[in-house]
């Protein structure tokens, strides 16, 4: 049985206004990959979080910049990469404070990457200093 790879790319201006478009893109691709509804919701949220981080932190709401979302799936899994050319940060260096501790410290940052790690099966980060940052996320396609 051959497995055909399908590839999709969305490139949008770096504005939170485009998060709805990004979610639509991801759920459309996820539906083609035959994810169940609950997994589609998880994908949608993970990619929203990744892109919101880029828009707000890597690009500091600079609408002249662009966020690129690449998706590729085969029979086994869906790989999504969120690519930016902004200020990179390594999510593995985000402190794993409890939500109670974050509340106590009056902080609400860091929740997005925590969600991404819980929602996706694999998460990795690639930084080419001064050039680009890529957040790679993989979700396995559950078979009945």
């Amino acid at each position, binding site marked *: 049985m051959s497995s055909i790879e399908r590839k999709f790319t969305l490139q949008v201006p770096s504005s939170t206004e485009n998060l709805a478009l990004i*979610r639509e893109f991801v759920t459309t691709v996820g539906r083609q990959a035959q994810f169940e509804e609950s997994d589609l*919701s998880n994908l949608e949220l993970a990619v929203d979080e990744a892109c919101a981080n880029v828009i707000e932190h890597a690009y500091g709401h600079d609408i002249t910049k662009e966020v690129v979302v690449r998706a590729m799936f085969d029979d086994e899994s869906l790989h999504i990469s969120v690519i930016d050319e902004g200020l990179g940060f390594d999510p593995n260096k985000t402190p794993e404070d409890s*939500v109670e501790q974050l509340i106590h410290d009056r902080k609400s940052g860091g929740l997005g990457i925590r969600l991404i790690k819980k929602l996706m099966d694999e998460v990795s980060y690639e930084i080419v200093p001064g050039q680009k940052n890529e957040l790679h996320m993989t979700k396995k396609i559950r078979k009945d």
Partner: protein
Amino acid sequence: MANPFAIQTSIGDGENDLSIVALEGFVDAHTAPQFEDAIQKAVDVGSVRIVVNCEKLNYISSAGLGVFMSFIEEVRDRGGDIKICGLTPKVRHTFEILGFQDIFEMLDDQQTAVKRFTVS
């Protein structure tokens, strides 16, 4: 294509009066500031007993969850609380991934949430 968002607020007159904030549609990094403004308005007038009605909420990302987190300690320090009601299973799942059920009281409907304030 756009994911709709709406917010209905009924801000209390003071510390003995409840505020109700009803969220509708999609709360993400784009729309969360409107939610934050609504809670801030209630807190500013001293109405720290707040019910957030999520019956019509379809989606929330960490930007929205962060609003709950950033106000809860101040509100409780002032003798109030933020109670969440009417979560759909999908949205409840997002809250629960981060363990919000251990921090916030989540009620089935607005009437029950309001009653929790009046009884306690």
